[in-house]
């Protein structure tokens, strides 16, 4: 009995040592992998119980802050401006994870960024909990508020993006309908769930989703606003603002067996019985046939190249330049342009052209900036808890997209275009350069209300603001809606707010 007992004793030691080796493997070797695994909710909870940094707009307006509270998470995330900035801030939800800037800038806000490490060491020594750094945005609250009010007072679904042309700073970025991020950051699981379900599964299944940031995360056909790019390409080819183009109400698309392309309402663009108009008039009256023909004469490669310069790729390469925005941007694309008919339709911003409102704002900002395209960015600077600067965003040039004289010619044409654009909201003694767009979309385009565009900058010389407005489905489903009627007033209201605010 003695020898077997000793052997069993040895076996027991082997069993326990096997367990010890295994837990050492788990808790020492694999520890970091397990700690940082995305499915491990514990790290999130630890992050939650930390004083997260603030998100502020320019002028120190607080968009997101963490207030001390008396529960296990110790800090409650608060969004004082709620829905006006929800598309930017996103929400910081325990159950659904962070979105928007809360997600993209999480390293700084949570204090995990290496730049904050020095401060953290002293926190460690002094026994304070690590605090997150702050993110300061380029957004100007007055412009943001004006854009949000203009879109929501009519109940529109859409987006507004305003840029400062010479720096690429995003002055306003609004997407409607919006939502209140506060309940999603609640500490009660039930509250988060209720808020989230109300957003993702509303009573009306066809209601537009409030969680979609339409300014950067969705693409739309740009319609006539795309004619700015075709016009720039024509000017670069050597055309002038007075080059004659067709004014015919209808043209037949080659190689389609007789398919036609018409002007808006089948109108003749030319005065009286004329058959030709200048390029300026064609843009001002938004003649489809003219730009279809210009595009066809330019050729697919030239149109693609021009669009690529403005940041609208053909989908073959990933779009660059928006990487520094601070939010994830869906790439805008011009499409493959397989045949001549597709080229004609592309020339008027239909077919496969699909752009974000941000991309359209970049196009007009580039024209306003005399052809130099600046990288749009949302984040002005990030700071440590003691407000010392971690990093500051410098204006970055993405190159001279078009020569100065071409950009200025397009600007002059846009000034004419604004004069021809009906709609309210004009400001006395202010010269606005603009272009409208009314884009068909959907499987039954003739019976679907069009997306309405208005892109503009003002004052025309050295504009401090360029804006793109996009309103989905004519605002309220009106089949006769146009960019001028629906989006124009919103764009002018945003410009007015910006200029009266001393921008």
């Amino acid at each position, binding site marked *: *009995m*003695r*020898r*077997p*007992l*000793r052997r*069993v*004793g040895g076996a*027991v*030691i082997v*069993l*326990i040592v*096997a*367990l*010890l080796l*295994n*837990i*050492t493997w*788990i*808790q*020492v070797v*694999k*520890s*970091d*992998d*397990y*700690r940082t*695994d995305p*499915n*491990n*909710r*514990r*790290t999130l*909870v630890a992050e939650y119980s930390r004083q997260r940094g603030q998100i502020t707009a320019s002028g120190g307006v607080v968009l997101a802050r963490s207030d001390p509270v008396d529960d*296990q998470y110790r800090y409650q995330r608060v969004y004082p401006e709620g829905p006006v900035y929800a598309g930017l801030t996103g929400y910081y939800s325990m159950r659904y994870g962070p979105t928007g800037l809360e997600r993209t800038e999480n390293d700084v806000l949570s204090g995990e960024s290496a730049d904050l490490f020095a401060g953290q060491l002293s926190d460690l020594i002094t026994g304070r909990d690590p605090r997150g750094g702050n993110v300061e945005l380029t957004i100007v609250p007055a412009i943001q508020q004006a854009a949000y009010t203009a879109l929501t007072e009519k109940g529109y679904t859409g987006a507004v993006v305003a840029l400062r042309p010479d720096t690429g700073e995003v002055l306003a970025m609004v997407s409607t309908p919006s939502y209140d991020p506060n309940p999603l950051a609640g*500490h*009660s*699981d*039930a509250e988060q769930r209720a808020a989230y379900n109300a957003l993702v599964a509303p009573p009306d299944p066809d209601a537009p989703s409030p969680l979609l940031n339409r300014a950067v995360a969705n693409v739309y056909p740009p319609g006539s606003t795309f004619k700015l790019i075709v016009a720039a390409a024509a000017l670069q080819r050597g055309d002038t603002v007075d080059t004659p183009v067709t004014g015919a109400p209808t043209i037949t698309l080659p190689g389609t067996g007789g398919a036609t392309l018409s002007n808006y309402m089948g109108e003749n663009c030319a005065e009286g019985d004329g058959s030709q108009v200048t390029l300026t008039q064609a843009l001002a009256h938004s003649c489809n046939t003219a730009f279809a023909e210009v595009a066809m004469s330019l050729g697919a490669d030239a149109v693609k190249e021009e669009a690529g310069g403005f940041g609208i790729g053909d989908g073959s390469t990933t779009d660059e330049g928006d990487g520094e925005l601070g939010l994830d941007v869906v790439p805008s694309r011009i499409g493959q342009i397989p045949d001549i008919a597709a080229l004609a339709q592309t020339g008027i911003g239909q077919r496969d052209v699909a752009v974000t409102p941000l991309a359209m704002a970049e196009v007009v900002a580039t024209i306003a900036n005399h052809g130099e395209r600046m990288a749009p960015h949302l984040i002005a600077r990030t700071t440590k808890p003691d407000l010392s600067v971690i990093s500051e965003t410098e204006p970055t040039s993405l190159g001279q997209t078009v020569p100065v004289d071409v950009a200025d010619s397009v600007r002059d044409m846009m000034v004419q275009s604004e004069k021809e654009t009906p709609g309210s909201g004009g400001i006395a003694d202010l010269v606005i350069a603009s272009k409208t767009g009314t884009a068909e979309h959907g499987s039954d385009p003739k019976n679907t209300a069009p997306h309405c565009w208005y892109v503009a900058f003002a004052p025309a010389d050295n504009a401090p603001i360029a804006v793109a407005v996009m309103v989905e489905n004519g605002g309220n489903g009106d089949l006769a809606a146009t960019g001028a009627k629906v989006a124009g007033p919103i764009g002018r209201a945003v410009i007015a707010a910006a200029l009266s605010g001393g921008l």
Partner: protein
Amino acid sequence: MTGVQPRVGATTPPADEPRPTGRAAELGLLVFAAVLVTGALIIVELNQSRTISWDLASYGGGYLAALAVAHLLIRRFAPYADPLLLPLVALLNGLGLVMIYRLDLAAQVSAANRGEDPPTSQTSLQLVWTGLALVLFLLVLVIIRDHTVLQSYAYTLAFAGLVFLAIPAVLPARYSQVNGAQIWIKVPGLFSIQPAEFAKIALIVFAAAFLTAKRTVLSTAGKKVFGLVLPRLRDLGPLVVALVVALAVLVRGNDLGTTLLLFGTMLTMIYLATGRVSWLIIGLLGFVGGALLAYQLFSHVRVRVNIWLHPFDDPLGSGYQLVQSLFGMGTGGIFGTGLGAGRPDIVPYASTDFITAALGEELGLVGLTAILLCYLILVSRGLRTALLVKDGFGSLLAGGLAFSLALQVFVIVGGVTRLIPLTGLTTPFLSYGGSSLLANYVILALLVRISDSARRPEIRPVRVAAPITEAATEMVPVVGRASAPATSPRGRDGEADR
């Protein structure tokens, strides 16, 4: 002027030093265990930002008082028992209580977050079970004054154990099924018991008695094949029958953990009794065959094995529990998050099967190692008792009980740490659960009883110098003729059979 020096031991003869019983050490260790447990409780309260009050000291004091009562009764009924057994169990049980309390707090918070009523407190129930377990422990010590008595009840115990074990199988599911395992006897509104925990002990006692009686036959008889002496199956008849019945009932009730535990323990006991490796090989072959068969037959076995092999394939579904267990321990790291500062409640069933994962998260590698070493010491003291005790039955019983504890710890801790596939078992003395606690305290009581017998000093006959008139004549060896000693000298501690 110096004081008068007392004269020491000048007249009194030196007394025969009694062998220390270890009772003082036991009391000291019990106090130490109670202090550790109270400290753990205070840390939980601090980390959960609750107010520290004198109630905590009274909990710790109450725990110590209950243990002191047990200690005093051991002094009275098992004065020579191994002094490490009760303190080790007291520490494990106390840490288990603290962790269960900590999980209760977490459950209250999450219920409040969901806007529900707080769930029933497991802590208060576990405290009741601990009290009952201590009472049962003492009853066993008081009733069984001599463990050898158990031999005469071997067959009765085996039969009763099997019947008890089989009750859930014949009860309707709503009185016997919890989470897919039909191994309970539920008395609605009162309590549930797991007969397997008690049947296990009865079968170990039966096996010890049976094997002791059959030892000689088992060790000798049999044919030789490939150098292995094959035992005769019919010699093992009753034991095999009991084991087959028990395993059949357990497999039918989906209780894989206890099946594994019982089989392994019985096999080890046969090896202990016979010293024959051939039994082990036969048993292991049988185990491999049974495991393969179970894998083919039962989908839940396949699921368990697949989760074990690929837990991260479905980390939020079937693999959730194991993955979260690993995450918890990984997050705890070397030193743990601190008691009450982690999130052990994320792992489902953290208070029962996965309590070691919860402890690993909050106490870290260091704490979990300490806990496993506590088990190692407890088991090795049990095996030491088996070595020391003079009767074969006691030795086999102590060895079987000690090994069953070790195997149970290995199977469940190995399961929650992904060393082996997970099978449902409680962690002895730590997990929440009345049946498990009561049964393990019975095991403790039996070990204490056997170790008392093992360490009891032999009563040496007092030598009285006989008057010279009655002195016996003595043989005087003839000079020049060396006499060989009649017996070979046996070294102490059985060196002869090393």
